[in-house]
């Protein structure tokens, strides 16, 4: 079972990962896994030099408030250069995650296919991926 779980979220749209965060937290608690929360930051503010300073504190605050002390949580921020899927997959490799837990956006008009990043990550990642709907 997993030892390090990557949980990509976007703090600006919490609806997408409402269930995913619960599932990730549950797994982390059950198996004593470390939870690495990743925020792939929106492109508008993408300046690598200033990125961590701008977003990391907000992410740390969120993490501290959301999770109890019994699970180990890390906070990471990466810039979104237009391919968040790639960023997520690279991040997973970098932090040594063996599972990615992701939510998807609410169903699009085209209900038959989820073009979301989660499905793409499921296809491309090098580790297990849990798409939580």
């Amino acid at each position, binding site marked *: 079972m997993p030892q390090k779980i990557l949980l990509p979220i976007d703090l600006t749209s919490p609806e997408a990962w409402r269930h995913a965060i619960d*599932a990730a937290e549950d797994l982390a608690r059950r198996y004593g896994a470390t939870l690495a929360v990743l925020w792939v930051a929106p492109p508008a503010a993408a300046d690598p030099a200033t990125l961590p300073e701008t977003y990391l504190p907000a992410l740390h605050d969120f993490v501290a408030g959301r999770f109890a002390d019994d699970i180990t949580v890390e906070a990471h921020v990466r810039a979104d250069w237009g391919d968040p899927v790639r960023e997520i997959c690279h991040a997973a490799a970098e932090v040594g995650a063996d599972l990615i837990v992701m939510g998807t956006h609410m169903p699009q008009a085209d209900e038959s296919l989820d073009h979301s990043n989660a*499905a793409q990550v*499921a296809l491309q990642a090098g580790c*297990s*991926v*849990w798409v939580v709907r």
Partner: protein
Amino acid sequence: MYKVIAVPVDLAHVDRLTKALETAADLAKAYGATLYYVGATTETPSSVAHTPKEFKGKLEQFAAERGTALGIDARARSLVSLDPAVDLDRDLLKTFKEIDADLVVMASHIPGIKEHLISSNAGWIASHAKISVFVVR
């Protein structure tokens, strides 16, 4: 959180699916969910079984064995796919709906077997399913 977990299995390559099967069993235990092993067969004889009836029997036996060994509520659901090379994934989704599954746990691929010889396509199912999908690598 989850009540019914569906696990697609290829009975011809069960030995290569250990991680996916273990993950599914763990999750079933953790959530107290019912586990359905879902297998597809052709109407014509295959390397696994001569008839769909025989296939169903083998799948049920597989589920019973694992259920007892792992201490979980494990059941079997077999389906006949008339043209699996083309229809399998769609047929699987239909079956998931029939059993009211809310989570699918499946292997991303079967190690050592080329992609297109495999039964089901985890990527397609992850994209098209309306429920959570756990792709195990």
